[in-house]
């Protein structure tokens, strides 16, 4: 470390919002809709995916409301099927998959590696349009009658036995897949070719490593989902028979193709979130992430292992017992890199100077809930217990612990962490800490009872259930209400802070990442001069010494 690298630590009290930044550079709606600036595209993603999140959330609210009573009374069973299908499709393809890469990755990945933009700005804009076309098609399918196959489009249900908007929804997902591929491809090229001088692979922030791993999955997995959807559409329109047993086809083959994407897809969703957590934990414990290299490679390991575990979704579908054995074993292997991450974050906290700003609270939430989600995944990876649990609420709880407790917490941590950089203003700290706590409590009330319901044998995907399960379901619905408040609060106070928030300054967290060394909000070209990197990521020990020396010098004078 030499003195050429000085981390930018301006005084927050005198900070002003710079007149020239990416928001003020150009005005008018077209300057946003036709922009090729990665930061503006990130904001477009953020706005649109918040919209889809609230649609998906409203559908979740309807599901919980229906399950308040044992009878199917709020809606008919068919309607219920459509509601949970749309909840799944909207949340997975239009919120979870693009959430962190689309909003935070687009905005910060180029800044973190010291680039002016992603390598392919036009393709980046195209990815947002693909996302919007897919999203609008999905809403169209929902309004014009919906689809009731579940988000997994299981054959032969989707090809032969339902008469709902399967093809429209399939097309929507196919188009949204292009959005995902474009983003992933852009990230990979950018990380390979656009790093600033001195930014070596092992100086990359772990957020970048995590997005790199997720991008590999997007690029390799999504096309296979594409062909699976095309074959379902051909089956429905022409009856080509590849998934039709009466013509010699095999419905199980669809499962193989579908889960070859859709299992890695859960890592597409969670890996960027893990990247956020690495940034947040390190910044608020003022320490370098413990075992940087191990955490970086664990992301890649998750991506690689992620491609060889898909058949664990099919243990009860009649695959051979040898396949069950192998895939069960491989599934256990994924637990290793995930545990590496959790342990390394815990060791980062050890002897750190921990502070409890909102992003850190969300990160703690993530660590606890993701660990529970991950460990219950082992129950489902073991074929013996999986047969009992897989069609019950246990799997619903497991998935939501990983995705809502994990990914959504990480997303909120990231939004709060980088909000000052994106907007130039601080969010209000006290109320947002309250929101983080409310979210955590609401989440546990909603989903923990579902583990118990699952082990008691309550099946998933039904609008009605035996009366003995009602107490736990009421608890779950009550929790969902609290959770809803936890999600509404950030919307309100973040919008409030756009106008009334305290001015953040360039580096409110005194963090070492490159994105903090430029003004907030950043210039359109990110950096006034091309940065040169000559230090490791997260070098907080050095920063501490440096500031101590500066203070001493000031005192002497």
């Amino acid at each position, binding site marked *: 470390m030499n003195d050429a690298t000085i981390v930018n630590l301006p005084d927050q009290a005198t900070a002003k919002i710079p007149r020239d930044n990416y928001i003020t550079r150009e005005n008018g709606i077209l300057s946003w809709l036709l922009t090729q600036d990665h930061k503006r595209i990130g904001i477009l993603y953020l706005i649109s995916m918040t919209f889809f999140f609230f649609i998906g959330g409203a559908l979740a609210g309807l599901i919980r409301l229906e399950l308040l009573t044992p009878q199917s009374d709020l809606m008919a069973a068919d309607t219920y099927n459509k509601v949970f299908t749309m909840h799944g499709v909207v949340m997975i393809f239009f919120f979870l998959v693009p959430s962190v890469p689309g909003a935070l990755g687009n905005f910060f990945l180029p800044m973190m590696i010291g680039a002016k933009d992603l390598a392919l700005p036009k393709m980046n804009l195209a990815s947002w349009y693909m996302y919007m076309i897919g999203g609008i098609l999905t809403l169209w399918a929902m309004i014009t009658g919906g689809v009731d196959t579940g988000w997994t489009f299981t054959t032969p249900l989707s090809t032969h036995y339902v008469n709902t908007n399967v093809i429209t929804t399939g097309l929507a997902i196919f188009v949204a897949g292009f959005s995902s591929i474009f983003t992933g491809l852009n990230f990979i090229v950018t990380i390979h070719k656009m790093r600033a001088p001195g930014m070596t692979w092992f100086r990359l922030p772990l957020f970048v490593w995590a997005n790199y791993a997720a991008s590999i999955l997007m690029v390799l997995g999504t096309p296979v989902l594409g062909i699976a959807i095309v074959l379902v559409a051909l089956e429905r329109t022409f009856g080509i028979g590849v998934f039709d047993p009466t013509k010699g086809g095999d419905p199980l083959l669809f499962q193989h193709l579908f889960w070859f994407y859709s299992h890695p897809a859960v890592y597409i969703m969670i890996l960027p979130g893990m990247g956020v957590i690495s940034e947040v934990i390190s910044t608020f414990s003022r320490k370098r992430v413990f075992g940087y290299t191990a955490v970086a490679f664990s992301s890649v390991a998750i991506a690689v292992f992620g491609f060889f575990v898909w058949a664990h979704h099919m243990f009860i579908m009649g695959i051979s017992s040898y396949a069950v054995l192998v895939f069960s074993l491989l599934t256990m292997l994924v637990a290793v890199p995930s545990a590496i991450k959790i342990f390394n974050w815990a060791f980062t906290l050890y002897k750190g100077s921990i502070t409890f700003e909102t992003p850190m609270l969300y990160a703690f939430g993530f660590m606890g809930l993701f660990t529970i989600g991950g460990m219950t995944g082992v129950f489902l990876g073991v074929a013996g217990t999986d047969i009992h649990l897989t069609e019950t609420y246990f799997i619903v709880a497991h998935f939501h612990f990983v995705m809502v407790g994990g990914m959504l917490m990480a997303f909120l941590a990231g939004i709060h962490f980088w909000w000052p950089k994106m907007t130039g203003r601080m969010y209000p700290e006290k109320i947002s800490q309250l929101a983080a706590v409310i979210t955590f409590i609401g989440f546990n009330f909603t989903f923990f009872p579902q583990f118990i319901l699952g082990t008691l044998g309550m099946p998933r995907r039904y609008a009605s259930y035996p009366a003995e399960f009602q107490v736990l379901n009421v608890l779950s619905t009550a929790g969902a209400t609290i959770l809803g408040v936890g999600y509404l609060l950030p919307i309100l106070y973040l919008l409030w802070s756009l106008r009334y928030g305290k001015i953040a300054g360039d580096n409110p967290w005194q963090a070492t990442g490159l994105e903090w*060394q430029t003004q907030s909000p950043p210039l359109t070209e990110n950096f006034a001069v*091309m940065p040169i990197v000559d230090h490791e990521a997260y070098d907080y020990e050095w920063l501490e010494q440096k500031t101590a020396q500066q203070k001493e010098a000031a005192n002497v004078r």
Partner: protein
Amino acid sequence: MSDSSTAAAHQHGSEHAPFLRHHFESMEQQKDATNFAMWLFLLTEVMFFGGLFTVYMIYRNWYYEAFVAASHQLSVTLGGVNSCVLITSSFTMALAVWCAERKKKAAVVALLVATFLMGVLFLGIKGVEYREKFAKHHFPGTTYSMEAFTNPASDAEATEAGDKPLPQAVAERTELFFSLYFAMTGLHLLHMLIGMGLLLYMVFRAQSGAYTGGHFSYLEYFGFYWHFVDIVWIFLFPLLYLINRH
């Protein structure tokens, strides 16, 4: 941001190369990045067709007898001619890139037109083949006919190949072969059509000298795509036409 925090190595301004996009530091970086991106895109195409090829290989192994008999209905001559047409079109495409590098505008336009016409010829021949399949009711669906497989004597191609009559249960599986035949060649055709649309666009652009001014990346990367579509056919031809023909 203080100046000392980042040694300014980058000089922006007057000596900007004419084709350099603003966010790249040098022409070399731009070329590296876009070239890499194109290869990654082709990788996604490999995965897309890879899924389809997997489906094909599984059913071919399960229903080998039916697939052999069904493939005898395809014309090796027409398929072979089409393979030559596509390989030639790849050659003219490569030549177009070569000429663009040497700034020969007329040659680039002519070669692109030749590539396009080769594509038209391919589609024409493919159309003839499709028409035969429709005429014989080999398009999967309610009108599908197994006559040629249960009673090969009634069918010219089957007789020529010396097919023996297949039992009903085996003959039924030939429909799966034709399903896959139409799905695979159909998706290949879709890629051809997209490519030909881009070729037309490039012919007009090339006439105004777009690729002969020293910057022809677009042409070069389109070439990658066109060769890829060619290679898909190179795999499709033996898989569909040449099962068990020695």
